[in-house]
């Protein structure tokens, strides 16, 4: 191997295009699974707080499964397992439409929904019950007390863990490599195979992941600050 030379990779249009495509797919997986996870998390939270008797144990089982089984095994179960059980038409449609990426989004999204719903729940639970009583004493209905008093505080409390779990979702998007989605880590390995400049391309991959992780953390910190200027001023 010759000396350290980043330009051998970044200056090569073919490698640069592969990396850019990798970043694009990583973000497709990250944003897609984030949206899926958040939607599901809110539904799960609704089910938890609903008067339905089976709601609570059902959500608890969902959360328990997704937290105690490794994310990689969940992805494998989706891609190698459930994919093959699907009806012929659906499976071939998926196979023609980047099935790896779609299953990465589904697998990661379902898994992360469990974490997000627990974050939201503990955020809401940390609001003291006195708040609800006070709001109702002031004439709010249950729904309007939820909307104007409990929810704003609860979501604010839930923001720090939500940001942390968003960062780990971003990092977990690299697991899609194992089911063959062409995301950033996949692109890094491909460029490595072609260029044999392992050190340089790993360094580029690491810096890219680090950059985007820090970016997500900074966006999260900004949102937390906007949501609660008083606490930000104290910190």
């Amino acid at each position: 191997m010759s000396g350290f030379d980043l330009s051998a990779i970044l200056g090569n249009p073919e490698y640069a295009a592969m990396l850019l495509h990798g970043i694009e797919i990583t973000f497709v997986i990250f944003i897609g699974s984030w949206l899926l996870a958040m939607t599901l998390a809110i539904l799960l939270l609704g089910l938890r707080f609903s008067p339905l008797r089976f709601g609570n144990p059902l959500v608890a089982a969902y959360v328990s499964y997704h937290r105690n089984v490794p994310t990689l095994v969940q992805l494998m179960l989706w891609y190698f397992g459930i994919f093959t059980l699907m009806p012929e038409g659906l499976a071939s449609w998926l196979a023609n439409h980047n099935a790896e990426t779609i299953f990465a989004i589904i697998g990661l999204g379902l898994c992360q929904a469990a974490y997000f719903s627990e974050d939201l729940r503990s955020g809401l639970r940390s609001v003291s019950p006195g708040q609800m009583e006070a709001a109702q004493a002031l004439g709010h209905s249950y729904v309007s007390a939820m909307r104007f008093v409990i929810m704003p505080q609860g979501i604010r409390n839930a923001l720090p863990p939500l940001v942390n779990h968003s960062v780990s979702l971003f990092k977990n998007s690299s697991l899609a490599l194992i089911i063959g989605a062409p995301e950033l880590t996949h692109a890094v390995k491909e460029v490595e195979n072609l260029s044999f400049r392992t050190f340089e391309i790993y360094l580029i991959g690491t810096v890219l992941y680090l950059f985007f992780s820090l970016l997500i953390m900074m966006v999260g910190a900004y949102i937390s600050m906007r949501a609660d200027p008083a606490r930000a001023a104290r910190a």
Partner: protein
Amino acid sequence: MINDIIAIVRDYWLLLLIGQYPNGPLGGLANTLILSALSIALAFPVSIIFALARLSKWPLLRWPVTALVYVTRGVPLLMLILWCYFLIPLWTGADVPSFVIMLTTLVVYQGAFLSEVVRAGIVALGPGQMDAARALGHSYLGAMRYVILPQALYNMIPSIISTFVSTIKDTTLGYVINVPDLTFAASQVNNQLLTQPFQVFLILAIVYYVICWSLTHVANRVERRIARRRAGLSNIRAAAVAAPPKIISEQP
């Protein structure tokens, strides 16, 4: 479906449990557990050293470790595994088994995560403990060894167990460098059967679920016990100084 699963377990339980052990390297569930236990046992002292370095007053000690912790937390574990897979054979010049590479990666990775837990535990004790220990004539390290760490580490036991759980889950990533663990054994079974991937990976998920669920359960029980003990102790202390009850209720 159920019959398929029972048949797979009956035919392949030994492979899933210990891999090809007498005829090949130890693998399967046994290897997963050994790998996780070894990496948590080695990551624990590493994390204490990292935490002390991050709390140190010497920038030369503090900055490199802080940078290492941030990089480790900002980069996917998969990327770290690839780094170790590339660098360790390069540095040692030897043919390092993938088990050792995975072990090293996990020690660095979990060491960085645990060091944050240790650091939080030490900071949460408050500066008063250190001041009092120093006033009684302990050196800085003596105070750490006999006063600060025993308290901080005791409070950390639940976090250590949950780190153990996440280590077990992280060992699955050894799949990319062919560490012969449970996931590897399951994919071997899958390659031999070819027709029942869902059943095989469902078994895999169930095994991981049972292990991690039981350990999480243990962690929760230990956490409750510790919380109760601390609440009891702080009640006695609070009664002595007649502290307002609000402070007690705010303790985690």
